[in-house]
C-alpha cells in the first residue's frame, strides 16, 4: 500500500482532487489531540492500494499555526511515500514556496498543477517539461473540476513511490548553505533528533522555529547546538539584517530563477470579473449598504419564500396526526404516536425549509468568494468593537446555527481573539430560536411581529458586542491581532458544491432533530402522561414545572414555560414543541394561541423571547464550544454567564417595562 499526503494552499481545489481520487471511500475524523478535521480516503490504481490523507490547506511549514504543525508532523512521523502538492497554476510563484519547503523537509513530492483551464483562459503558458527538469520532480497538469489528469497523477504517485528520492535542485546562497552545514554537524550527533533531516533542522533553527527550538531544548546536546546557532547567526549578521526574511527571499529568488522562460504571462489588459465586482463591493461607502441589501435578500429568501414549504409540511403532519388518532387504538398508543412523535417531529421539521434555504444562501455567499469581501468591509467596524475582522464570518453563520459558526472560528489565528468570538457567538440568534419568536411574536404583537423579532436579533448583536468588549478587558487581550487574509477570485459556484455544502450543514440539523429533539419531546410526552389521563398539572412533568417555576415568578411565566425552558437546554427547537404537548393542543401551532394568550402579558412574552435568545446554548453548541476551546473551564463559563445574563436582561425588561406602564 502506498501512503500519500495531500497538501496545498487554500483555495487551490485540493478537496476536489481528494474527492475525485477517493470518491465514496472516505473517512472523516479528527487529528489526535486537536480539533482539526482529518480526512482519509482510499483508491486503487493498477492493482496497488493508495491511502490518501488530506492535510490542511497551508501556505508554508512554519510552527505558527496548528494546521502547519499537523502537516509537518504527518510528513515527519508518518513518513508518507509521496506528498502531492496541489498548485494553482495561475499563481505559480506563490504556490512553489510550499513546494520548496516540502523538498527541504525531505519529502518525495509530486506536483499537481491544477486549474490549467483557468491558466489557459488567462493566456498563461507553462513549459511543464522544463519545469520538471529544473525542479527535479514530477509535475502533472490537472483540471480537477473536470477530472482531467487524475489517472496521470496516480501514475506519477506510484512511480515516485517506487523510486528513491532524487537530489534536490534547490540550493540557497553559499554563505547560508555553509551556515546550514555547520549547524547540521552538531545536530547530527544528537540521538533524539535522528528522525529529522539535519539540514532541515538547521534551517528551522535559523528561522527561530518555536517547535524545533523546544524539541532541541529537551535534548542533552541542547547547549552545544544553541551555541553553534548563535555563533553562526553572529557571522551572518554582517551580511543579513534579518535571517528570517533572508531565507524567505532566497526561496523566492530561486523560484523566479526557475520560472524564467518557463512561464509566460500576458500583461493583464482587461477588467476581470473579480476586479469589477471588487471595485463596487469593496467601495468605501457603498460596500456596507450593498452588504445590507444582500442580507435582506437572504432574509426574504429564507423566510417568505420558504414559507409555503413549511406550511405544506405542517399540513401534512396535521393530517397524519389526525389519521392516527382516529384509527389506532388503544388511546394511549394513538396519543404517543400522534401527540408525541408526529406532532413533536412535525414542530421541528416545519422549519426544515427555512433552515435549508438559509444554508443554501450562506453557501452561495461563501462559495462565490463574497464572504471574504464582507469580512474586509466589516473589518474596520469590527476593530472598533474590539473584534477581529475574521470574527465576522462566524458571527454571520451564527444566525443559521451556532455549531458550524463556532467551528468556523478556526481561521482566527490569535487564540484569545478566537476564544472571545466563540464565547460570544451563541448570542447570535440561531435558527432554532426563531420558532419561539414567531410563536410569541405573532400571538402578542400581530401587526408588529417583524420589528419585534428584528429587535430581538438586534438585542443579541448588541449584547454580543458588549460581552466581547467585556471579555477582552478581562482577558487583557489588547487590540485585536493583525488582519491578513487572502481573497480568492470570485467564482460562479457550481450547483453541485452548493448542494453539498447546504446538505452538510442542513443534515446536521436533521440529525439533531432525529435524535435529541425527538427523544426530548418523547421524554416530555412520557413525563406528561404519567399518570395517564390525569390533568396535566398533576403529572410528573407538572411536578417538575412547579418545582422550577418560582425562579421565574417575577417574569410572570407559568410552570409550563418553566418546563419548556428547562428542556430547551437539549435543543432550543424543543421549546415550541414541548409547549404544544404541555397545553395539549396537538398538532398545529395556531391552536396554541388561546392558551398562551391567557397565560401571560405581552411584556412577559417579550422578556421570554429575550430569555430564550440569551440563556444557555443548546447541547450541540455546548459540545462545539468544548471541542473548539478544548477546555471545560470555558465551556462552563459560557453556560454560566449566559444563564446569568439571560436572567438579568429578562428582569430588566420586566422592570423597565412595568415602570413605563406596559405591565
Amino acid at each position, binding site marked *: 500500500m502506498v501512503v500519500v499526503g495531500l497538501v496545498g494552499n487554500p483555495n487551490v481545489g485540493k478537496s476536489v482532487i481528494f474527492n475525485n481520487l477517493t470518491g465514496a471511500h472516505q473517512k472523516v475524523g479528527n487529528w489526535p489531540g486537536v480539533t482539526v478535521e482529518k480526512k482519509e480516503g482510499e483508491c486503487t490504481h493498477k492493482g496497488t492500494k493508495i491511502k490518501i490523507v488530506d492535510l490542511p490547506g497551508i501556505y*508554508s511549514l512554519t510552527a505558527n499555526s496548528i494546521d502547519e504543525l499537523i502537516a509537518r508532523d504527518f510528513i515527519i512521523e508518518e513518513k508518507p511515500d509521496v506528498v502531492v502538492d496541489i498548485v494553482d497554476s495561475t499563481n505559480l510563484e506563490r504556490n512553489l514556496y510550499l513546494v520548496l519547503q516540502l523538498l527541504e523537509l525531505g519529502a518525495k513530492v509530486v506536483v499537481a498543477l491544477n486549474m490549467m483551464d483557468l491558466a489557459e483562459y488567462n493566456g498563461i503558458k507553462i513549459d511543464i517539461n522544463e519545469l520538471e527538469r529544473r525542479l527535479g520532480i514530477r509535475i502533472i497538469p490537472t483540471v480537477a473540476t473536470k477530472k482531467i489528469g487524475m489517472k496521470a497523477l496516480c501514475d506519477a504517485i506510484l512511480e515516485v513511490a517506487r523510486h528513491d528520492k532524487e537530489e534536490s535542485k534547490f540550493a540557497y546562497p553559499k554563505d547560508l548553505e555553509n551556515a546550514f552545514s555547520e549547524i547540521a554537524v552538531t545536530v547530527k550527533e544528537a540521538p533524539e533528533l535522528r528522525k529529522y533531516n539535519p539540514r532541515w533542522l538547521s534551517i528551522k533553527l535559523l528561522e527561530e522555529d518555536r517547535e524545533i527550538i523546544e524539541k532541541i531544548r529537551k535534548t542533552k546536546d541542547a547547549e552545544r547546538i544553541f551555541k553553534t546557532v548563535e555563533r553562526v547567526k553572529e557571522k551572518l549578521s554582517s551580511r543579513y539584517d534579518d535571517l528570517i526574511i533572508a531565507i524567505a527571499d532566497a526561496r523566492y529568488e530561486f523560484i523566479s530563477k526557475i520560472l524564467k522562460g518557463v512561464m509566460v504571462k500576458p500583461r493583464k489588459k482587461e477588467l476581470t470579473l473579480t476586479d469589477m465586482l*471588487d471595485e463596487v463591493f469593496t467601495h468605501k461607502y457603498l460596500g456596507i449598504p450593498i452588504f445590507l441589501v444582500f442580507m435582506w435578500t437572504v432574509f426574504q429568501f429564507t423566510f417568505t419564500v420558504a414559507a409555503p414549504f413549511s406550511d405544506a409540511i405542517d399540513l401534512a403532519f396535521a393530517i397524519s396526526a389526525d389519521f392516527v388518532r382516529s384509527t389506532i387504538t388503544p388511546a394511549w398508543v394513538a396519543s404517543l404516536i400522534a401527540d408525541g412523535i408526529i406532532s413533536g417531529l412535525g414542530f421541528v421539521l416545519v422549519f426544515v425549509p427555512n433552515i435549508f434555504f438559509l444554508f443554501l444562501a450562506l453557501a452561495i455567499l461563501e462559495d462565490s468568494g463574497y464572504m471574504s469581501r464582507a469580512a474586509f468591509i466589516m473589518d*474596520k467596524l469590527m476593530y472598533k468593537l474590539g473584534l477581529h*475582522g475574521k470574527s465576522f464570518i462566524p458571527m454571520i453563520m451564527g444566525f443559521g446555527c451556532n455549531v458550524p459558526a463556532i467551528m468556523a472560528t478556526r481561521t482566527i489565528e490569535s487564540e484569545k481573539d478566537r476564544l472571545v468570538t466563540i464565547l460570544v457567538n451563541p448570542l447570535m440568534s440561531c435558527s432554532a430560536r426563531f420558532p419561539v419568536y414567531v410563536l410569541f411574536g405573532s400571538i402578542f404583537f400581530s401587526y408588529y411581529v417583524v420589528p419585534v423579532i428584528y429587535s430581538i436579533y438586534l438585542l443579541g448583536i448588541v449584547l454580543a458586542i458588549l460581552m466581547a468588549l467585556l471579555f477582552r478587558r478581562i482577558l487583557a487581550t489588547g487590540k485585536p491581532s493583525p488582519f491578513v*487574509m487572502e*481573497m480568492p477570485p470570485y467564482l460562479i459556484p457550481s450547483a453541485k458544491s452548493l448542494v453539498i455544502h447546504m446538505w452538510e450543514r442542513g443534515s446536521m440539523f436533521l440529525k439533531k432533530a432525529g435524535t435529541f429533539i425527538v427523544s426530548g419531546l418523547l421524554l416530555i410526552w412520557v413525563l406528561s402522561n404519567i399518570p395517564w389521563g390525569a390533568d396535566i398539572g398533576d403529572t410528573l412533568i407538572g411536578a417538575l414545572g412547579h418545582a422550577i417555576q418560582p425562579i421565574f415568578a417575577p417574569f410572570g411565566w407559568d410552570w409550563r414555560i418553566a418546563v419548556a425552558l428547562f428542556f430547551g437546554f437539549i435543543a432550543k427547537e424543543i421549546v415550541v414543541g414541548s409547549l404544544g404537548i404541555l397545553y395539549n393542543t396537538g398538532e398545529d401551532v395556531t391552536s396554541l394561541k388561546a392558551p398562551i394568550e391567557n397565560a401571560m402579558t405581552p411584556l412577559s412574552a417579550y422578556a421570554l423571547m429575550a430569555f430564550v435568545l440569551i440563556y444557555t446554548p443548546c447541547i450541540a453548541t455546548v459540545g462545539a464550544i468544548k471541542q473548539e476551546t478544548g477546555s471545560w473551564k470555558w465551556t462552563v463559563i459560557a453556560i454560566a454567564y449566559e444563564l446569568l445574563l439571560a436572567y438579568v436582561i429578562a428582569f430588566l425588561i420586566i422592570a423597565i417595562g412595568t415602570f413605563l406602564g406596559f405591565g
Partner: protein
Amino acid sequence: MKVEQIPKVVEATDNQKEARIPLSFCREGDVCTILGFEQRVGRRFIQKLTSMGLVPGVEILVVRNNFPGPLIVEVKSTRIVLGHGMANRILVSSKR
C-alpha cells in the same frame, strides 16, 4: 496592471529618489515595492506575509485603500486583505 517579479532591490541608494513610507499611505492604483517590515511585526506575521508572497523587493499593486481601514493589495496574482495596523508596519517605496 500586471505585477512582475523584479530582481531584489538592493538597499536604497542616494541617487534613487524613493519615499520610504508605510503601505497604508499609498493611493489606490499605486505600484509599490516592499522595502521591509517594522520591528513590531513579529516573527509569526513576517513568516505569514512572506509565505503569501510579500517579501522585500516584490512589487505590489494597491487595489483598495479605505484609510483608516483595511487595504486590498495584489501580489503575485493574489489578492490579499491587510488590516490597517499591519499595513502601517510594512514599509514600501512608491513610484509617484
